[in-house]
């Protein structure tokens, strides 16, 4: 009932264009920040932080990256996990071999991933839709193959390298879950803020225009080539950073298996379930994907003592797949849209119009 624009008639364009024009949303956001920065690290278990929240943040970043490309710019990519792998291996090498500081290594991994992503984005200048999807699927296999066979990059056996010991600014050791958590959280918050600004600014509008009617976008002055390639670069930058973060703070090693084609599919699923073309949807989708197996485990655990791993995996796939189909049919804009619908109703409540 108090969810209102709060009779504050907007008196400037700046306030009308704020990310959260409604006070309650703003408070909700501040509350989430408080939860993330204070409550989670202080009052939850190490298990929860390492196995749920850190991967949640990383996948939210990666899902946002894919959302930029697929949800905003309308260019499908079903090989996105490969770019996470590029970011992971690149940052491990920058940090472990070349001795760059930690944060620049992670961002550098993102930049190298962006460079590779831009090259794999070149086909989008010529082809669309299904054909582009296949060409991005090819990028998955090409990148995997190169990483595994290029020993200098992928190190030991099966394309696995252990994470080097991490130091922030060269002397603060990142040895506990909480410290790794803060690293992930800070990077995620900053990058998501930048990302939100991009998608609500002119570049984001250009992307959506390309997605909706590419020829009309071109005729109003959008440089299709440039903005599509920028979308690939930005998208794969986020994927690369997410891949690096996952390996540094969650897995503790760079392992090509973490980024196989199933992960690429899962990321498509995340943004479909969460919401195409929204930042919130990237969070919802990633959260859903990370929590789902744990939720099923808990649920089945209340019936049996030991849940067999294969059953768990199968139920997970079936549920996730079923939900993707459900959202594609019933609500193509995902959970984020459902949330907005509820909010719109509340805004006008109790009057239906």
């Amino acid at each position: 009932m108090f969810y209102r624009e709060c009779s504050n008639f907007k008196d400037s364009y700046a306030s009308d264009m704020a990310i959260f024009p409604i006070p309650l949303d703003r408070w909700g956001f501040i509350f989430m920040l408080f939860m993330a920065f204070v409550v989670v690290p202080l009052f939850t278990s190490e298990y929860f932080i390492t196995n749920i929240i850190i991967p949640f943040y990383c996948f939210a970043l990666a899902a946002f990256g894919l959302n930029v490309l697929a949800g905003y710019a309308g260019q499908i990519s079903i090989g996105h996990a490969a770019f996470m792998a590029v970011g992971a291996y690149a940052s491990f090498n920058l940090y472990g071999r070349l001795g760059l500081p930690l944060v620049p290594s992670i961002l550098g991994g993102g930049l190298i991933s962006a460079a590779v992503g831009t090259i794999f984005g070149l086909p989008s200048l010529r082809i669309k839709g299904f054909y582009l999807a296949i060409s991005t699927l090819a990028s998955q296999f090409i990148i995997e193959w190169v990483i595994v066979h290029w020993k200098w990059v992928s190190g030991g056996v099966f394309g696995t390298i252990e994470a080097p010991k991490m130091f922030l600014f060269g002397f603060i050791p990142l040895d506990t879950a909480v410290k790794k958590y803060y690293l992930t959280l800070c990077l995620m918050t900053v990058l998501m803020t930048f990302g939100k600004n991009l998608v609500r600014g002119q570049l984001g509008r250009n992307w959506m225009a390309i997605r909706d009617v590419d020829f009309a976008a071109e005729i109003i002055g959008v440089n299709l080539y440039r903005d599509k390639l920028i979308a690939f670069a930005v998208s794969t930058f986020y994927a690369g950073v997410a891949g690096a973060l996952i390996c540094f703070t969650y897995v503790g090693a760079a392992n090509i298996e973490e980024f196989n084609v199933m992960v690429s599919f899962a990321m498509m699923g995340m943004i479909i379930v969460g919401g195409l073309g929204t930042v919130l949807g990237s969070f919802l989708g990633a959260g859903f994907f990370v929590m789902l197996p744990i939720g099923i485990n808990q649920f089945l655990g209340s019936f049996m003592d030991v849940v067999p791993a294969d059953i768990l995996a199968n139920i997970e796939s079936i549920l996730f797949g079923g939900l993707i189909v459900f959202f594609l049919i019933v609500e193509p804009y995902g959970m984020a849209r459902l949330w907005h619908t509820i909010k719109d109703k509340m805004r006008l409540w109790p009057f239906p119009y």
Partner: protein
Amino acid sequence: MNEKKEPLLRAENIHISFGGLKALNDVSLEIYPGEIMAIIGPNGAGKTTMLNIINGFYKQDEGRIIFEGKKRSKKMKPNRIAAQGIARTFQNLALFRGMSALGNIMMGRTMKMHANIFSQALYWRFSQKEEIEHRKAVEHIIDFLQIQNIRRTPASTLPYGLQKRVELGRALAAEPKLLLLDEPMAGMNLEEKEDIARYVLDANEELGYTIALIEHDMGVVMDICDRIVVLDFGNKIAEGTPEEIKSNQKVIKAYLGEAEN
């Protein structure tokens, strides 16, 4: 009336065919600064094709386009042509359906916004100032077209007439030197047509836009246009003021011929 001025755009001896079909056959026309010019003709006459060539969406097989006294290279991309100052609307709406009315009209400003990607990511100083400045310009257009109450509505959910209006807004937001309108009043009722005719006239008289439009409603065309070019089966069959066109035998025959079919 404007004959003594240099034309803003001159299309010379344009030919284009699709497969065996000759859609335009040696058509020449001029658009003079400050005028409202109409292209009329029966269905399939090649009117839309002409606009498509003028704004670079199609490339002519033969002939040339001269804009502001300079010959245009055939390789020029549509977005470069837009940057020279040509904007248009489409016969079958081409709105960005996933965006709000406001977002669509803001797209008209895209060429005028120069904040780079880093500045936009920070949304700081230059980028924010630029966004606000262009938002103001867009609000003027929203006021001009009287669509204040649908600002935030997704384009896809707007009724047809309003979608047409938003598309006009998007083209106006680009502040083009030449505005091309492909059947801006098609499918509208009388009242809506009068509204659009008013906006077109105001855009021409108050805002000083040069306009070339395609329209089937002869009443409207005769009322608001300074000059008319008539196409039939890809050929230009007449050109002149509304009075001259009304009494032109070829035109009457072309239209009667269509009515008989």
